[in-house]
């Protein structure tokens, strides 16, 4: 397996709080699900992977490079797509301008920018709103704009923090299809607390709790942890709660 993301004993602290504790993880191509309860450290881990936060301890390699090196970090960022949990936006920009803006900031080749922007907007189903200003869009549409800016550069590593929040069921189905498509070409790491998203698209999954990886395997392996008495409506939810109960 080609390892595109490699974390070795990564620790990240905020003051006295250890948000990540000696996390080690290797991720290859495909869609990787990051599950965990609120405050488990999912967002912190994603921010470390997005080169927003530097780890306090441990080694990190992304796309075969060390992000601590400035030039390597720039190259990683060129091939990175990131959708933060809370997406900011410039209200006066149009959808097209916003996505184009990020394509330009990601230093795409000038001749590729326009077709890439058009394609990204089409992929999230906003082609009929491309000229609309962001301040006129609904929350779900803004989320799709965020996804469009993340995928505009056909990223080798796509990091999505709660990407389906605010999407209606139909949009979520479409989005999962999009994730599968992107996952076939690179690595997608999806942080979510919605286990049905993971069940639908992820080939691999990790469960994080209190800053530690407490489970790593396929969704089927996670389901296998679930017993009849475990809490949850679906087999995956039962596996999820059973693993958490086991480590607490």
């Amino acid at each position, binding site marked *: 397996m080609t390892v595109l993301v490699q974390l070795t004993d990564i620790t990240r602290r905020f003051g006295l709080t250890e948000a990540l504790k000696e996390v080690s993880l290797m991720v290859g191509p495909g869609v990787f699900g990051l599950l965990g309860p609120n405050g488990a450290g999912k967002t912190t881990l994603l*921010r470390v992977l*997005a*080169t*927003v936060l530097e780890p306090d301890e441990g080694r990190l390699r992304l796309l075969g490079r060390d992000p601590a090196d*400035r030039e390597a*970090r*720039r*190259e990683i*960022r*060129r091939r*990175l797509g*990131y959708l*933060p949990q*809370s*997406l*900011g*936006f*410039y*209200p*006066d*920009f149009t959808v097209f*301008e916003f996505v*184009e*803006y*990020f394509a*330009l*900031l*990601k*230093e*795409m080749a*000038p001749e590729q*920018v326009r077709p890439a922007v058009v394609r990204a907007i089409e992929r999230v189903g906003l082609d009929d709103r491309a000229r609309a200003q962001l301040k006129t869009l609904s929350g779900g549409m803004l989320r799709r704009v965020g996804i469009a*800016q993340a995928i505009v550069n056909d990223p080798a590593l796509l990091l999505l923090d709660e990407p389906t929040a605010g999407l209606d069921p139909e949009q979520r189905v479409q989005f999962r299809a999009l994730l599968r498509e992107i996952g076939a070409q690179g690595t997608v790491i999806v942080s979510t607390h919605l286990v049905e998203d993971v069940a639908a698209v992820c080939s691999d999954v990790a469960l994080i709790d209190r800053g530690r990886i407490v489970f790593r395997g396929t969704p089927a392996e996670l389901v296998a942890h679930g017993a009849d008495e475990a809490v949850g409506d679906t087999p995956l939810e039962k596996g999820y709660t059973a693993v958490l109960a086991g480590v607490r």
Partner: protein
Amino acid sequence: MNGLRLFRIEARRSVALWLAPLVIGAAWLLARNDLALGVILWPHNSVLARDSVFFAGPLAAGAGAWMAGRDRRHGMGELLFTTPHVRPVRDALIWLATGLWIVAAYLLAGVIILGFTALRASWGEPVLWPLATGFLALLTCAALGYLLGRTFSSRFTAPLVAVGVFLVQIGVGHILLSNWLGMPGWLAALSPIVPVHSSVWYGVRPNIGPGQSLFFLGLTGLILALLAAHDVRDARGRVAGAGAILLPAAVMLAGVGLLRDVPAVSLSETSWSPRWSMIPYEPVCDGEPVAVCVHPAYRAVLPDLVPAVESMTEPLAGASGAPRRVEQAPEMPLNLTGPLAGESSAPQVIPIRISTYTWAGFNATYDVAAGLVSEQPDSRLNDAQAAIKAWLLRRAGVEIDCSGRAQVLVGRSVFTAEQCAAAARFAELDGEVQRRWFETQLPALRKGQLGPELLP
């Protein structure tokens, strides 16, 4: 290429785009009275074109601060941080896009003012350095606002910065000139709106263009270097940043050095400086038998001025010692006048002053009347001279004040009741009698040797 496209998006979505009409409107408000004057002068309007910096500077600074705080205001910092773009380059693009609209509006207003001047001015050419220094000052203001907006990111930063720049440029440009704080007057030249002297006689003086340009250029470079240093974390970057700061700082200090040379023709100096070389000109004349000559830039006043002068000189025509020529004297600061360009064989040439702010003949009529009755028209007139002057002014259609109480606005137009009565008696005389009286008495009258008892 990508930079250009980013610039295009930033320019299209810049808040400065909405401020541009304000800049043009403010420039028009500042200039409209001067553009309506009867006499349009290139040097004056060249400074006028610069003076919209008065409002445009604070707007540029406020817009810069607003744009600098945009990422934080909209929660964009984290997402932008994950892109490989070079932050100082993006900062520079946003700053340029912000400055672009304000500068474009400022230049458009300047072009309108100068274009209007080109249509109506009868002599001379534009002086471009005031407009150029204003241009650079606006870019400096936008950069300063941007730096402050990045440093103090708050919703209130932009308005506070705009008000602050407004106060600072007034404070530096005007208060320092009045020497309230005991600071050297040349410091005032650091303000883009510092008052400068302007006239068709000596142009725009002192020429602080090179010094101001270097100062604003260096200051802008310094601010941009500080902006770039904002995000530098490694030692190599800090060394490069220090080097990048030194160059613009040196340029800025060179500008300050040039401005320090200004005291010889100090901004606060209100008297004529011998360093201000006169611009040569050939007066234009009209009228018979007394020629009325003015600077060619004032040609527009002749149609009004010549009849007024003729009405006063007509009774004196042919009298011994009567003035032969009326000529506009060069205007100097502090209401002083310079040497005449044409024939100056006083007392037969009467120097006149022409104000551009009142009816063109206002000052000139008084000067002619005073010059006709006295060889030294600036000295105090005796009662006989004053009475004849009052009579001459009435002939020219000027209302005179016989209250004897000096008033600031009317100045030398005030006469006593006795002087007015003597003028009325003289007016009742037959024209031929008046002429004969002037033929015999004019030299003595002009020398101040006639008492009121010798008036007919």
